[in-house]
């Protein structure tokens, strides 16, 4: 502070200033700041805050926090157990089926191994599968397959395809081309190239991605139940609708625990295969 005070005005003007990290032009920087500020004002104006309603709800919020701290596992235990079994089985089957379908699509969507026509078809499938939320897909599949875990299974398999094929395709496009060339130089056909040059390079990452998707599918299975696709989400929805916050708290704790355990387990497995 004292050092800065002794500087003359000219020296201060010449003193080092930290250069901006991202946008060099000052005019652009201020345009962006002002535009963002204007947007914030407009956006905040569109939010209606109903204070009396919130005050009324605070009591319920407090009851939810109490329910979370003192969860009630016992009174709805059969519902929770059935929901969990549905969710877990849905997760496993949909991940397996999703992987089986997404491997060929992933190979087809890699530019360096697939012909252009197949490449475009597979990319289109991926785009369709990725562009919609799981919940929206679940709404459609529940309308087609009826309520229950089967619709959830189809939804999660469908969502897995977009995720896994896209990442697998990107991974195949990034492989070391020299290995492909070496295997091809031995006179190997297309299948042999895939089997001996591509597959060993992408396998560790495919296993990692599959485990990651298993995680995601479990988390999503807790959500799509809200629109009728079975699983723990349906149980949770019922509990919240009945204002049974202690049961809802118990379900949320179970979900968090399972996600934590599966994340920990998959991180160990991924470390071993990579």
């Amino acid at each position, binding site marked *: 502070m004292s050092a800065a005070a002794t500087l003359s005005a000219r020296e201060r003007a010449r003193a080092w200033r930290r250069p901006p990290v991202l946008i060099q032009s000052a005019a652009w920087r201020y345009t962006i700041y002002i535009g963002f500020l204007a947007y914030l004002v407009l956006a905040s104006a569109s939010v209606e805050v*109903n204070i009396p309603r919130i005050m009324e709800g605070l009591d319920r919020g407090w009851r939810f926090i109490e329910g979370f701290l003192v969860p009630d596992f016992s009174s709805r235990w059969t519902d929770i157990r059935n929901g969990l079994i549905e969710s877990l089985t849905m997760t496993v089957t949909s991940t397996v089926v999703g992987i089986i379908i997404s491997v060929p699509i992933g190979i087809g969507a890699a530019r360096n191994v697939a012909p252009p026509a197949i490449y475009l078809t597979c990319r289109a499938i991926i785009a369709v599968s990725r562009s919609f939320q799981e919940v929206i897909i679940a709404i459609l599949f529940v309308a087609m397959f009826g309520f229950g875990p089967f619709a959830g299974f189809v939804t999660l398999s469908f969502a897995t395809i977009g995720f896994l094929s896209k990442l697998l395709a990107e991974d195949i496009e990034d492989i070391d081309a020299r290995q492909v060339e070496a295997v091809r130089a031995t006179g190997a056909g297309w299948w042999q190239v895939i089997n001996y040059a591509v597959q060993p390079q992408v396998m560790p990452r495919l296993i990692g991605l599959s485990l990651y998707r298993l995680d995601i599918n479990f988390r999503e299975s807790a959500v799509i139940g809200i629109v009728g696709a079975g699983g723990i989400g349906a149980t949770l929805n019922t509990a919240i609708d009945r204002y049974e916050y202690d049961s*809802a708290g118990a379900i949320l704790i179970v979900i*968090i625990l399972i996600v934590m355990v599966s994340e920990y387990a998959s991180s160990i497995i991924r470390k071993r295969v990579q």
Partner: protein
Amino acid sequence: MSAVDASPPRKVWQYRTPRARLALWAGWLALVALFVFCWQVMTKDTIWFFVLDAPAQAADIGSRMMPPRWSYLNQLWVPLWDTINIATLGTLLGIIIAVPVAFLAARNTTPSTTLVRPLALLIIVASRSINSLIWALLLVSIIGPGLLAGIIAIGLRSIGFIAKLLYEAIEEIDEGQVDAVKATGASGAQIIDQAIVPQILPAFFGISVFRWDINIRESTILGLVGAGGIGLQLQASLNVLAWPQVTVIFIVILATVVLSEWVSAKVRAAVT
């Protein structure tokens, strides 16, 4: 007996030892068994008639959805604006809470690895495991339906994502710069400001825009549970089986998602 047979058996090169192959087969067998078991349990109560009927149902819904009712589009602009606001304000809320959490969770900036870091990690895991739709379900029942519930739901869900990626970025910084700034006699806050922030700022913007893109996607459905946005219209149209309106809503959602993904890809390419 020819001379060839009398010689010791030729060893053919194999990728795996017999034991490894056996273990691999056992692993695959266990996986298949698990799959079959899960399949049996899951489809125990499935009514196969409905499943077999699905193609007919799909065709039926498809024919009902098909010409989209374009006039409905004019009622969608306000909900769309709300949806974008939910995503943006929710992302901001998430960022505001996530940044301190990230600094508390990163090994090199946390004040205490035994007490504070596990707490910060717990916040991250709890926020990450619960989907924004579930947060919205809870918040709608607590603070009432509307945009605010959606914004808070998106914000709470974003904390974990942003904080996790940000604390990993903080842990990967170049410690040399921290040492250099520390050597000038800088205080803790100055070290963060001068040595750490410039290193993580590009990652920070990339993460935030990425999360914003995801949040646009998620905020389109929050209305299903009453948390505002275009999902409210979707729910209303589904309730009266107005499939031509549903088609228009899907198209609007698709366009928004594609646009936000494009914006986010551009920004991320620019900052990193």
